[in-house]
């Protein structure tokens, strides 16, 4: 058949019945057909490539930081270089990996398929969001190359408005990145509200979609606030306005309030999609209807709502009122409840399920353990008295890495391994997958658990050297060793997944015997996702009604795991 490219805003010819071998990947091959695509699946692949690129840049910065800290006197950098290095690590990882990773890749690819739609509501906006991401990325990388940014990813004033490093350019890049994020969130909200297939009620939405709905609400409520905050810093640098500068009558603590009003909820922009992934993995690899579906769904919304009320816990020692501190502390404790609801429900889902320990499930179990530690140590920091001791130490570094890396990144890898055969139609070797999942888990714990200990003992964060306290060196060396293990665990998937693109075993529509509309369409899906819009008759994770599709590949290595059908 004639190749059909979906250009944004243009209509597409319906696929012909004999087109089963034509899919979104091979429907056309020109570079132009990728760079001007309106197909949400192709945009997801573009995002996958670019997000992976930025992830490796951020990882290199992290490795350099870790190597530097092996010696109490530092090994190779000036203090200023070190500041620029951890700033680059934070800025790249947060704004260019964690925030867009799961929503822009997997949300983009899967939400329309999961709800039975042909595409997102606004394909052109979707493509524009990728271009804004790339422009933002180029600007931020330029700011690093032209001298770097040494204010950390938080850009606290008055330092960020006074320093001569490339803060202005970097902030303009992040401002554009905000628009990219907003475009994605807005697209998801409209799509989930208005484009669900017949029968796909809110009660039947996959939990992945619920999580992205909650995430999108945070994105469109929070991102504009940080956008205006960063813009004010830029104006302060360019036009000497005085909103945050005490010399001009302003108040630097106001910057912290406005910054954390976004940046604390942003933690949930990073981790809620990951929780959505975990809900899918746990239910499908336990072959069991998810326990407490509604509780998991509503707890996502509760996290989105409560997440906006706790920003002050970043400022317990920044001079805010003690009474504010008490309220923010209480609310932060309450915020642990919906997260705990999720963890308990996931555990109950596994209970008496037919658990299959394939790669994605190994990641999901890793997530449970790491997120549990990350979440519980968060309570130490939500508590006023202990926070005064722990704030700005390595304890806090370890805490948010357990949530961000142990939570969001591990969920990202789980999602990558779970939907990889759907996205590219080929399976990677499961044993390699499991091994690297294990390496990630071990390497991660070895990297960050010692940081809890030395943080508790008083090692401050963001210090270039610690010759005043050489007793911390063993912990730093353990941490650096762990990060090399972690690096191996991250390089391996990059290798075998790339290998599998050409040599992996081809799979059918449903290699995992999973439930959900995405497993009812071809792997890889056709451009319009479905031959015709499906009609949904069952709730999500309906394992009581037998497999929806029996056509999986007999040769698939997964077959061996099918103890029961």
């Amino acid at each position, binding site marked *: 058949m004639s190749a059909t490219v979906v250009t944004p805003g243009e209509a597409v010819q319906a696929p012909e019945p004999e087109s089963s071998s034509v899919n979104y990947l091979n429907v056309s091959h020109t570079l132009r057909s990728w760079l001007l695509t309106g197909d949400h699946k192709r945009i997801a692949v573009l995002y996958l490539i670019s997000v992976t690129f930025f992830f490796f840049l951020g990882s290199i910065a992290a490795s350099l930081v870790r190597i530097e800290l092996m010696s109490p006197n530092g090994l190779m950098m000036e203090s200023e270089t070190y500041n620029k290095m951890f700033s680059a690590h934070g800025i790249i990882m947060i704004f260019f990996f964690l925030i867009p990773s799961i929503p822009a890749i997997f949300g983009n690819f899967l939400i329309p398929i999961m709800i039975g739609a042909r595409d997102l509501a606004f394909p052109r906006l979707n493509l524009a969001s990728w271009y804004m991401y790339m422009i933002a990325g180029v600007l931020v990388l330029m700011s690093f190359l032209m001298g770097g940014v040494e204010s950390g990813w938080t850009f606290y004033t008055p330092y960020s408005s006074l320093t001569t490093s490339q803060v202005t350019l970097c902030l303009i890049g992040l401002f554009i990145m905000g628009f990219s994020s907003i475009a994605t969130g807005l697209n998801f909200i409209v799509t989930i509200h208005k484009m669900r297939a017949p029968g796909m009620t809110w009660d039947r939405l996959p939990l992945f979609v619920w999580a992205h709905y909650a995430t999108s609400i945070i994105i469109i409520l929070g991102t504009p606030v940080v956008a205006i905050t960063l813009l004010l810093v830029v104006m302060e640098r360019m036009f000497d306005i005085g909103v945050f500068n005490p010399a001009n009558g*302003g108040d630097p603590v106001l910057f912290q309030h406005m910054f954390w009003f976004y940046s604390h909820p942003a933690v949930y922009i990073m981790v809620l999609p990951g929780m959505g992934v975990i809900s899918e993995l746990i239910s499908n690899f336990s072959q069991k209807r998810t326990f407490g579906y509604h509780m998991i769904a509503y707890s996502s919304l509760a996290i989105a709502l409560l997440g906006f009320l706790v920003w002050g816990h970043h400022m317990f020692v920044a001079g805010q009122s003690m009474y504010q501190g008490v309220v923010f502390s209480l609310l932060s404790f309450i915020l642990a409840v919906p997260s705990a609801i999720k963890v308990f429900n996931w555990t109950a889902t596994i209970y008496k399920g037919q658990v299959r320990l394939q790669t994605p499930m190994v990641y999901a179990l890793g997530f449970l353990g790491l997120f549990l530690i990350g979440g519980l140590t968060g309570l130490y920091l939500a508590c006023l008295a202990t926070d005064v001791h722990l704030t700005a130490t390595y304890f806090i570094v370890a805490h948010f890495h357990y949530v961000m890396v142990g939570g969001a990144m591990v969920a990202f890898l789980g999602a990558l391994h779970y939907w990889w055969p759907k996205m590219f139609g080929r399976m990677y070797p499961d044993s390699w997958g499991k091994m690297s999942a294990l390496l990630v888990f071990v390497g991660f714990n070895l990297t960050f658990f010692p940081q809890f200990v030395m943080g508790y003992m008083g090692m401050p964060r963001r210090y270039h050297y610690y010759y005043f306290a050489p007793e911390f060196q063993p912990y730093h060396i353990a941490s650096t060793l762990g990060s090399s293990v972690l690096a191996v665990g991250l390089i391996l998937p990059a290798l075998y997944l790339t290998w599998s693109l050409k040599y992996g075993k081809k799979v059918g529509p449903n290699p995992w015997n999973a439930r959900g509309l995405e497993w009812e369409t071809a792997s890889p899906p056709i451009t319009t996702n479905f031959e015709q819009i499906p009609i949904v008759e069952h709730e999500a994770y309906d394992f009581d009604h037998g497999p929806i599709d029996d056509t999986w590949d007999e040769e698939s290595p997964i077959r061996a795991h099918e103890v029961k059908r």
Partner: protein
Amino acid sequence: MSAAAHGHDHDDLVFHQFEDLPQQRESYIVGMWAFLVTEVMFFGGLFLAYILYRMKYQPYFFEIHKELNIGLGGLNTVVLLFSSFAMAMAVYSHQMKRKKPTLGWLTVVQLCAAAFLFIKLVFEWSHKIHVGHVPWAFQWNEPGVPPEIAKLFFSMYFGMTGLHGLHVLIGMIIIGALQYLIWKDAYSVKDYIPTEMIGLYWHFVDIVWIFLFPLFYLMPQ
């Protein structure tokens, strides 16, 4: 390739991802409102900062605000309110599928927007720049009011009215594009929804000014 060429069984105004025209219209309107939510939060950050500083420095802010020209601000309020009426009429005309009135009312909106910016820039801003109220070349000789607080006030004034003015300017560009497309009978504006969406945006810009005007110009002692 026109949308008429596709294979789904719905009429030719509908893009391929939608099932039918009502779904498409609703999606666009929901999307526009979601965008306006982001705009509210965007301006909300500025309003928050302004209100906090005004609570802190109210007596000084009262003295400083006398520098602003209530007459010109009030005139601009009337101009913008009338432009919102014209925009409502433009949307109504497009819904009625009447091309000339649609274009006419949109032109009225354009004229109002231009008048607003003209008054703002030529009569208000240029005067204040001339007497040295812009933050990067700030001068303040009034005794009894600390210069850094006056500078803060004018930082907020220029920041907020400037951002609002930028929204007016962007609105003019978008409305200009819409007028061109309607004039050319372009396919994408056959349905009235683009006009409706731009109308929502315009009313939002109007409402921002409705808050800015009393906050800056009509200050109680």
